[in-house]
């Protein structure tokens, strides 16, 4: 059963309060972020229906939005998601090599999750860190100036955290 805790429900209310009365639909995008964080890193249909019910909107309005934005995961993902940028400026600085290195190190293709459910590799389009390329996003953090050594360190740190 998908349900926010009392504390989180207070947070939800404060999100809704940012908008004039009757405009609570505006809270949909922040609310989906919160739901994704809370309910396993992805948005199931059940989660989305729950979010819709909190805002008093139809489920389809939630699906339309959730499928539009690239940060929402509509399928389960690994514990750590590597989102490596491969747009022009990062490409100029060797992002293809970094992606290749992560693929071979983790033994997965882009879009896949390791068998142990630890890592998911995704490629993403420009994240606004062009001067610090190559880079990737991990959760809310950016990892910049990536090298093979740095990737090794990140992977090791993730494994140790477990």
């Amino acid at each position: 059963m998908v349900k926010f805790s009392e504390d989180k429900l207070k947070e939800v209310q404060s999100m809704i309060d940012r908008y004039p009365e009757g405009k609570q639909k505006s809270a949909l995008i922040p609310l989906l972020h919160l739901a994704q964080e809370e309910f396993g890193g992805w948005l199931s249909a059940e989660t989305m229906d729950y979010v819709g019910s909190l805002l008093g909107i139809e489920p389809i309005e939630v699906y339309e939005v959730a499928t539009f934005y690239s940060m929402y995961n509509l399928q389960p993902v690994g514990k750590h998601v590597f989102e490596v940028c491969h747009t022009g400026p990062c490409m100029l600085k060797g992002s293809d090599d970094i992606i290749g290195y992560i693929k071979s190190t983790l033994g997965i293709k882009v879009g896949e999750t390791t068998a142990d459910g630890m890592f998911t590799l995704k490629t993403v389009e420009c994240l606004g860190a062009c001067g610090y390329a190559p880079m990737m996003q991990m959760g809310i953090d950016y990892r910049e100036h990536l090298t093979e050594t740095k990737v090794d360190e990140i992977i090791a740190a993730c494994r140790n955290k477990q």
Partner: protein
Amino acid sequence: MAEAVKTVKVTIDNITVDVPVGTTILQAARMIGGDVVPPAMCYYSKLQGSGGKCRTCLVEVSKGSEADPRPMPKLVASCRTGVMDGMEVKNMTSPKVEDARNGVVEFLLLNHPLDCPVCDQAGECHLQDLGYQHGKQGTRYEFKRRTFEKHDLGPYIQLHMTRCILCYRCVFTADQLTDKRSHGILSRGDHAEIATYIEKSLDNNFIGNVIDVCPVGALTDKTFRFKNRVWFTKPVNAHRECKCCSGKVTLWQRGEEVLRVTARKDQWGEVEEWICNECRFEKKKTTDWTIEGPTHVSRHSVISQGHYENTIKPKETFTAVHGGRNPQLLMDIHSVSEVNDPSIDLSQINGPATSDVYNHSTKQA
């Protein structure tokens, strides 16, 4: 004029017309009629907020208005641009428009499956018409066309996403006609699609209207699926007492059989009055309806073939037209073929001729 309506002058392809303030270029063109009317694939006058997306109705504004005569820098969507007093618009007289529209038609057809031979919309498809009018004979696209996972929308509505041009009309219809929308546009960009996300049938009593507003064969009537080609059916206007809707419909008949029920459409292909699902899907017997008479079909439409509206036998005979001269037959077909046997009166055959009818008549004869 009963009350003073403020009007403005607008000139489209050198034809000037007075229109009420707030009229769009497209509406003004429709008031003039004929060839100056830009084609519209997504705009629908009865659906608020529609239009602007497909870009087929782009026109050139060569003069903004009397007050500001500067031309508009880009082509504009005529369906969403209001006229100004003294505005001058070029549609078919603008090479720029023709070029852009050719491009738009190519884009719309780029990933279209061109499965007209098996598409129920064929014959009344706006994309087909547009393709004939502006399209080229071949495609320059050499890659695999886009496909989608199939979704079932329930017993009444058949969805073929590959044919969809994302006009959004069905979304507006569900928003504006029903109390609860359960389908929408999912994903974005070139893989955006019409879907419900979780398998769900569309069952609102007015949802059937999405079939009528769909300009292509993306949403078709499941109860009519593969039953017949529209140009073999005969549209007649009919009505019945209905508690939910006006009950004014078009029946598409083959002989006495009602194959399909749709709303009545105007000359722009737009629904005149919305109808309910009961009228559309459940009333398939002639006895359910009071027949008014044949539906007017544009003579340019393929549906007009085999469709006899207001048939009047010509008074003049062939000989009279030719000033008393009898045509000289180079070859008498009957002497070389049995197919057009003069003993069979084709006008006696009920409905369009088929081999069954023919064989039956020949045997009798």
